[in-house]
């Protein structure tokens, strides 16, 4: 049942990210060069690290998801601890990604929309990190029920969504200035 709720939130938040991606492409048409003249392009190195970290994080997440379906409490517990570590790491890396944009949010529409894409996705990352921490704490409760484990699968779906959306969005912001 909760799967459906997660799917609903994926659609809602995916639309939010789509709005910013659309705005990014729309606003680029207002500029002769992208980034604008005298603005350095973003440094893609940090994005590469973030992308690798997020892809790596899928491994423990998939293990947690499968563990929950097998009702294997141990795998789910310790897998979620690792997932939380990855989640916190992605949040920290997001801060570095913002710096790697090499532009302020208030310098031009280019800066605003590049920050906008990163900050919107970062908000979802922060929320998901918080949710993962709470869920992990719940897993260590003494009177845990079998049905409480199903939240692991919902967590997994949302984590896959965040990873899979970051690859094209980050690519749009960090790599397209080299092609546009």
């Amino acid at each position: 049942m909760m799967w459906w709720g997660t799917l609903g939130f994926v659609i809602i938040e995916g639309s939010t990210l789509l709005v910013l991606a659309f705005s990014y492409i729309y606003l680029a048409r207002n500029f002769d060069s992208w980034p604008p003249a005298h603005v350095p392009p973003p440094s893609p190195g940090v994005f590469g690290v973030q992308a690798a970290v997020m892809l790596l994080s899928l491994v423990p997440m998939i293990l947690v998801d499968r563990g929950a379906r097998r009702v294997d409490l141990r795998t789910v517990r310790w897998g979620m601890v690792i997932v939380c570590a990855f989640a916190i790491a992605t949040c920290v890396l997001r801060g570095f990604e913002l710096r790697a944009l090499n532009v302020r949010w208030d310098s031009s529409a280019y800066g605003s929309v590049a920050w906008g894409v990163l900050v919107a996705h970062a908000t979802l990352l922060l929320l998901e990190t918080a949710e993962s921490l709470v869920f992990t704490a719940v897993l260590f409760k003494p009177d845990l029920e079998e049905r409480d484990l199903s939240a692991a699968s919902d967590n997994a779906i949302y984590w896959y969504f965040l990873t899979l959306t970051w690859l094209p969005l980050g690519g749009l912001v960090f790599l397209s200035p080299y092609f546009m």
Partner: protein
Amino acid sequence: MSAPMPGDALAGRLTPSEHDAVRRLDQTWRQEPGFRGWLRSVDHKPIALRFLVTAFVFFLLGGLEAATMRAQLSRPENTLVGPDLYNQIFTMHGTTMMFLFAVPVMTAMGLYFVPLMIGTRNVAFPKLNAYGYWVYLFGGLFLYVSFFLNTGPDTGWFSYVPLAGPEFSPGKRVDVWAQTVTFTEIASLVGAVELIVTIFKNRAPGMTLNRMPLFVWAMLVHAFMILFAMPWIATASQMLAMDRLVATHYFNPAEGGDALLWQHLFWFFGHPEVYIIFVPALGFVSSMVSTFTRRPVFGYPAMVFSMVATAFLGFGLWVHHMFATGLPALSESFFTGSSIMIAIPSGVQIFCWIATIWYGRPRFTVPFLFVLGFVVLFIIGGFTGVMVASVPFDLQVHDTYFVVAHFHYVLIGGAVTPLLGAVYYWFPKITGRMMSERLGRWQFWLFFVGMNVTFFPMHWLGFRGMPRRVYTYLAETGWGGLNLTASAGAALIAISVVLFLINVVRSLRAGAPAGPDPWGGDTLEWATSSPPPPYSFAFLPVVGSREPLWEPGGMTVATGLRTDVREVLVTTLLDAAPDSTHRHPQPTIWPFVAAVGTAVTFITLIFTPWGVVIGFPMLFAAFTGWAWPRGDDHREQLMVDHAS
């Protein structure tokens, strides 16, 4: 003895063990008493009723704003309201009616009646439902408190840039608008998720998608439209807020931003918004037409397909709000085509209803009068809609009162009129009492005549060049007579609304007892008592046709759901075969706390971006409390870590 009917609890036809089951249900699903219970409720009927009452309060406030505008415009160069206050009033009127009344009231009708019509006990996520209401209430209160503090928004309900940007609208008025929109979007999205998941996964056994009432289809379409449209305005309003708060330049042409970007983002939401409001009304009409003609609505597949087509097409029209912005002619022509096309599914539905009435045995009760009124008013509004869909015509009437006339005909005629009928129709179910037919007839005719006297002259005013959003006009324009007529019509509407309120209050106190099924309806909400008990149905119905209450030989019921815990049945998506059960929560304060945290975050964000930092810990704490499994929730099947 034959199997018990869903509403048999009150009929005294139960065996002793069935009686025990009902007593346990009473205990398990009981509402907590007092103010504490009110804050902690997670049951869909009280929550939906709160939504309905709150939405109608906003309807009255929006109506007072309208009355003020009509009073000011009744004479040339009137001095009742100055330009600044007038700007706030038309903005508040639009924002209130669109965001605080029209969408929430429709979602609320769904939140109350969809679980009943599909034969389940609650919506899919009870705590989320409660949270949605509190967020809505706080958003509306926030807007009106701001208005009374002279910080009400004043740039129109659509808040166009650059007027709404930091340069031309200093202060916090537009920020209040942006955050009100955020509150209401969250609440609507919550309601949409509830409706979709409940409809897909909680239908009674046997209620295949093909057997769902047309009302339920309408609410499903409404919910999907919300899901895809609302994130656009939620994001856009935050982008506007950031332009004003932290000097981003999304909409600032001087730094490469784009004023038209705002219009695209707003209207990509704004056009589906009106169909979000309109489609549930189609569901009300179908329910009332079938009951009051005593036959199923003609052309069920065509009706379903029309509502779905309206939703899809509704996402392809938004540029018709931007015909005067200088976009390329070819792209504008495309939107002329799509805007005209959307009349087709609406037309199909109207013909199906006419066929139903023609081949049925109509009973001209007050709800049915409102259905007939809807047909007349909506057709008029639809005609003018097809007119303004044409670019050359729209270039003449854009931003004139012709457009005001058009959208009030489709919104009042297409949504409010069926809604009023729906109130007369379902008031007996919600309260257990009938409304007065006599007062209802007076109210209907006053409303119908008043509506036409108010808005029909506005077509001519538009042709004669009267622009929108002006606080007064000169006598030499010659607009005085038509404006005075429109204002007189508004007085008639106001009287009809007062009559409606009198009818509601008197009927609550002394209306005739309704019984479970006063109208002879065909859908499942009429198979239980009026008002329904908290658990809705003593025994879950099993459905074998589209009109379960009109099946010969009585109804089948399902047994086996636990009565000692709050449990609902989960069924498969297409065929509604029993699949599993879902445990529902006990009453809890955490949705309320989470809503307070949300309000603190968004209101603080108006003044400082640190609002996120301030609000986030509160939200985190509230979420923890919300999600933490509770000790009193009947812990079972405890987990053991096999390694320890």
